[in-house]
C-alpha cells in the first residue's frame, strides 16, 4: 500500500529535531548552525535566500559552518548567489548542485568554480523561470529566509525588501518543507504581516539587520555626455514616436540619464503625461526628480533601494505601500508585470553580435540573467492592445491582417559603442559561445535573443530592427550604429546610407539633436546631493555615494 503522507511525516521529524534548539519557534543566533544540522538532510534541495538585494547572511554563515560529514551534497536552488558563503558551501562539500538566476558580485568566482568542477550546474535561469520551477521540479525541502522582524507566533514582517520571500515560502511551506527565518528582532507586535506565522517553523533572532546590497543607485555625477546623448536619442527617437507610457528601465548610467532628462529635455519637448507614467522598477534614486515634477503616476517594485525608505513612505500615491506605510515589493509579481503589462524594456549590455543577440557574459565572469530576459522579451501570451505594442507590430509586419497581427514589445539595448575598459560593445561572435563550449552547455547564455530586440541605441544613432526585412539589412543596421568598433568599420557604407534613407537608422541630426548641445547641465540632478535636495531630505544616500 502506498503511503501518501511521507513528506508530512518527514516534516514532523525535522521539526521535532529542530525544536530541541528552540523555545516555541524562537532560536538563538548561536544555535543557528545546530538548528540547520537538525532540519536539513543530505541531498536536500535548499533555498538559502539570496535575492537580488536582501541576503539571509546569518543563515548563510551558519550553513557554511555545518559539519560536511552530517550535511552534504545539497542542491541549492536560490535566485541570487551574492555572498561569499553562498559559494563556500560548495568548497566544503556541504552543497554539490546549483540552480540559480543571478550572481553579480560573485560572477568571477562562480566562473572559476564551474570551470574547476566544484559546482555541478543545473541551469542559469531568469527569476520568473526559477520561481516557476520552485512549483514543478525544484521545490525546496528547506528554505532559509530573511525578514525584518517576527512575533512569537512566527508571523514575519519583511519590510521594504520583501522581494522573493513570499514566493519561496509559498513553494516550501505548502509542499511540506521547513521554513527557517532569520530576523533582525523578535517583537510583540509587527508593523504588518507579510508572511503568516503558520508557514514559518523556526525564527532565528540575528539581532542585527540583514545585508542589503545598494544595487540600483547610479551617481548622476558619473554620467558622461555620451550617455546623455544616447538618452536624448532614445527619448526623441523611441519614447516620443511610440508614446511609451508603461515600461521598465534596466540599471545603468544610460537609463539613469533618461530618468534625469525627463524634467528638463523631455519636458521641453512637451512629453509630460505622454511618456513614462507607469513603471515596473526598483525605486531608482535617479527617478526622484521626475516623480517630484509630476511625471510618474505609479511604480511597482521588485525590491527596494538603500536610503529610499522614507521617501517612498512619503509618496504612497506613487508606490505600493502597506498599512504601516513602508514599501511592499514583490519580485515575482513585478517580473510578471514587466513581462505582461509593460510596452518597453530598455537596458544596457556588454556584447551585441551581428544579428542582435546580446549577452553580459564574458569568458571569466558569469553574472547570470536576473530579470532582464523576461523584461527584455516579447510575451507571446499577451493579448491586450496598447498603441506602442500595436505600432511595433505594424512595423514588423506591415502586410499582416491587423486583427490577427501580434503586437511587439519594444526591447531596446542602449549603450556606448565602446564600454568599460574600452571593450567594444559590438562583436562578431559573443563570448557566451566560448563559455558554452568550455562548460559543455547545450545553450549559450544569451541575455536577449536577436528575435526579441527591436532597437539599438548608441552615440552614433538608433537602429530600428523592426523595419529590417532580411538578415543582411539587419546586420548592416547593427553595423551602422556600431561606431568605430571593428564591427562598425566593417559596414557597407552604401547600404547603411540606404537604411538611413528608409528611417531604419537615425542619426542625431535626423532627430534634430545637435551633439554640441549635449551637456551635463541638461540633467535635472548632477549629483547625489542634488537627488537628496529634490527629495526634500527624504532620500538618505548611503555613505559610499556621498561627497559631503
Amino acid at each position, binding site marked *: 500500500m502506498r503511503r501518501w503522507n511521507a513528506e508530512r511525516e518527514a516534516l514532523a521529524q525535522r521539526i521535532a529535531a529542530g525544536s530541541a534548539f528552540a523555545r516555541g519557534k524562537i532560536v538563538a543566533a548561536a544555535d543557528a548552525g545546530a538548528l540547520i544540522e537538525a532540519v536539513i538532510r543530505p541531498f536536500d534541495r535548499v533555498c538559502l535566500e539570496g535575492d537580488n538585494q536582501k541576503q539571509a547572511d546569518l543563515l548563510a554563515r551558519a550553513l557554511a559552518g555545518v559539519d560536511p560529514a552530517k550535511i552534504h551534497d545539497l542542491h541549492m536552488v536560490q535566485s541570487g548567489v551574492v555572498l561569499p558563503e553562498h559559494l563556500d558551501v560548495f568548497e566544503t562539500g556541504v552543497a554539490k548542485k546549483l540552480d540559480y538566476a543571478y550572481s553579480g558580485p560573485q560572477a568571477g568566482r562562480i566562473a572559476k568554480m564551474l570551470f574547476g568542477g566544484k559546482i555541478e550546474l543545473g541551469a542559469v535561469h531568469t527569476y520568473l523561470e526559477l520561481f516557476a520551477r520552485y512549483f514543478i521540479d525544484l521545490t525546496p525541502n528547506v528554505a532559509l529566509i530573511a525578514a525584518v522582524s517576527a512575533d512569537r507566533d512566527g508571523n514575519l514582517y519583511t519590510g521594504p525588501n520583501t522581494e522573493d520571500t513570499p514566493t519561496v515560502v509559498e513553494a516550501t511551506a505548502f509542499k511540506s518543507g521547513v521554513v527557517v527565518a532569520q530576523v533582525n528582532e523578535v517583537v510583540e507586535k509587527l508593523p504588518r504581516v507579510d508572511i503568516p506565522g503558520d508557514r514559518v517553523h523556526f525564527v532565528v533572532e540575528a539581532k542585527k539587520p540583514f545585508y542589503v546590497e545598494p544595487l540600483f543607485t547610479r551617481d548622476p*555625477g558619473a554620467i558622461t555626455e555620451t550617455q546623455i546623448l544616447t538618452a536624448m536619442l532614445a527619448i526623441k527617437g523611441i519614447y516620443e514616436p511610440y508614446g511609451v507610457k508603461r515600461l521598465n528601465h534596466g540599471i545603468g548610467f544610460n537609463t539613469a540619464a533618461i530618468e534625469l532628462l525627463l524634467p*528638463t529635455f523631455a519636458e*521641453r519637448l512637451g512629453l509630460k503625461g505622454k511618456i513614462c507614467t507607469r513603471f515596473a522598477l526598483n525605486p531608482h534614486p535617479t527617478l526622484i526628480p521626475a516623480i517630484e515634477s509630476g511625471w510618474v503616476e505609479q511604480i511597482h517594485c521588485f525590491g527596494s533601494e538603500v536610503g529610499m525608505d522614507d521617501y517612498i513612505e512619503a509618496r504612497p500615491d506613487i508606490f505600493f505601500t502597506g498599512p504601516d506605510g513602508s514599501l511592499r515589493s514583490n519580485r515575482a509579481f513585478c517580473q510578471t508585470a514587466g513581462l505582461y503589462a509593460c510596452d518597453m524594456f530598455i537596458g544596457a549590455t556588454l556584447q551585441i553580435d551581428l544579428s542582435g543577440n546580446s549577452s553580459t557574459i564574458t569568458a571569466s565572469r558569469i553574472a547570470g540573467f536576473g530579470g532582464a530576459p523576461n523584461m527584455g522579451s516579447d510575451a507571446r501570451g499577451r493579448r491586450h492592445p496598447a498603441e506602442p505594442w500595436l505600432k511595433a507590430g505594424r512595423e514588423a509586419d506591415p502586410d499582416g491582417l491587423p486583427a490577427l497581427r501580434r503586437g511587439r514589445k519594444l526591447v531596446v539595448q542602449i549603450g556606448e559603442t565602446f564600454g568599460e575598459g574600452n571593450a567594444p560593445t559590438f562583436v562578431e561572435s559573443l563570448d557566451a559561445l566560448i563559455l558554452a563550449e568550455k562548460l559543455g552547455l547545450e545553450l549559450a547564455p544569451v541575455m536577449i535573443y536577436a528575435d526579441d530586440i527591436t532597437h539599438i541605441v548608441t552615440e552614433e544613432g538608433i537602429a530600428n530592427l523592426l523595419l529590417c526585412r532580411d538578415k543582411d539589412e539587419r546586420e548592416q543596421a547593427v553595423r551602422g550604429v556600431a561606431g568605430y568598433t571593428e564591427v562598425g568599420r566593417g559596414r557597407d557604407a552604401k547600404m547603411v546610407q540606404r537604411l538611413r534613407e528608409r528611417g531604419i537608422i537615425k542619426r542625431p541630426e535626423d532627430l534634430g539633436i*545637435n551633439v*554640441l*548641445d*549635449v*551637456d*551635463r*547641465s*541638461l540633467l535635472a540632478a*548632477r*549629483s547625489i546631493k542634488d537627488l537628496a535636495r529634490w527629495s526634500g*531630505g527624504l532620500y538618505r544616500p548611503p*555613505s*559610499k*555615494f*556621498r*561627497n*559631503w
Partner: protein
Amino acid sequence: MSALLNEHPADVSWYEASARARIAGLLDPHSFAEFIGPAARESSPHLDIFDLPKQFDDGLVAGRGTLAGEPVLIAAQEGRFMGGAFGEVHGAKLTGLLRAAHASGGRINTVLIAFDTGGVRLQEANAGELAIAEIMRAMLEFRAGGGKVIGLIGGRAGCYGGGGLISGCCSGLAVSEEGRISVSGPEVIETNKGVEEFDSKDRALVWRTMGGKHRRLIGVAQQFADDTVASFRAAALSLVAKAPLFNLAAMDKEQARLERRLQRFGACKDATEIWAALGANDPKAIPEMNADDFIALADQIAENSDDAR
C-alpha cells in the same frame, strides 16, 4: 536647447565646470587672455611613451585678466585630464606664471589658482616633483615681494599630493563642500595603513576628514564657497582684500597656531569631536547643513588663521 547656453557663466556649478569655464566666470567678462594656449600645442613629452592621450594645454590653462578691474594672473587645472596631475609642461606653465607675476614690478599683485589635482603625474614623476618645488619657491618669492596668491578648491579631483603642499603656501584658500584638501589621498592611506585606519569607501568619513567644511572649520581655508562659479568669485575678491603679509613674524604666529591646534585636537578620533571642541552645538548636523547656515556657523566658531595665511 542647451541649458548651458542659457545659463550665465557665473551660475555654473564649479564642480561641474571645466577649467576654462571656471576662469570665464571668475574673471571680469571677456577679460581673459590665455598664455601658451592649446594652439601652441605644448603637450607632455612623456605620455607618448605610455601610449596615453595628450592634451594640447597639458591640463593647465594660464593667462591674464582682470578681477573687479584689477589686473591678475590666473591658472586653472583641468581635473578631467589625468586627474589634473602635475606633469612637466603643466608644472612649468604654473611656475612661469608665478615668476611672471614676481617680475611684473608691482603691476600684478594677485595670482589666482583654481586647483583640481590628485598630485604629481606618475608617468612623469621626476619632472612633476621638481615642478612642485619650483612652484612653491616661485610662489613664496612673489609673496615675499608683497604679492597675493589665492587658491580655489572645489573640483572633482580635490587638491591632493603636491597640490596640497602648494595650497599650503597660498595667501588664502576658498573651498566648497565638494572640495577636498590633503596630501595623501584616502585610497593611499587605506593601502598603507589598513582599512581600520581609514576606510576610503566610507565617503562621509572621507569628506568630514578632508572635505571643504572641515578644512574651513579648522582654518585651512578662510572662505567657504557655495558650489557656483559666482560664489568662488565673491570668495576670491574677499580673500584678495584681506590677504595677510608674508614675513617672519607671521610665520612665527602660524607655527604657534599649529602647535596650539595639536594640543587642542591631537587626541580627537573623528572630525566631529574637533567640531564639538570648536564649539559646534550639533556637530553631527554639520555635513547636512546648507551653505548659508554653514558659513554663519563657520564665521562664529572656525579656528582663526594667523597672518601667515
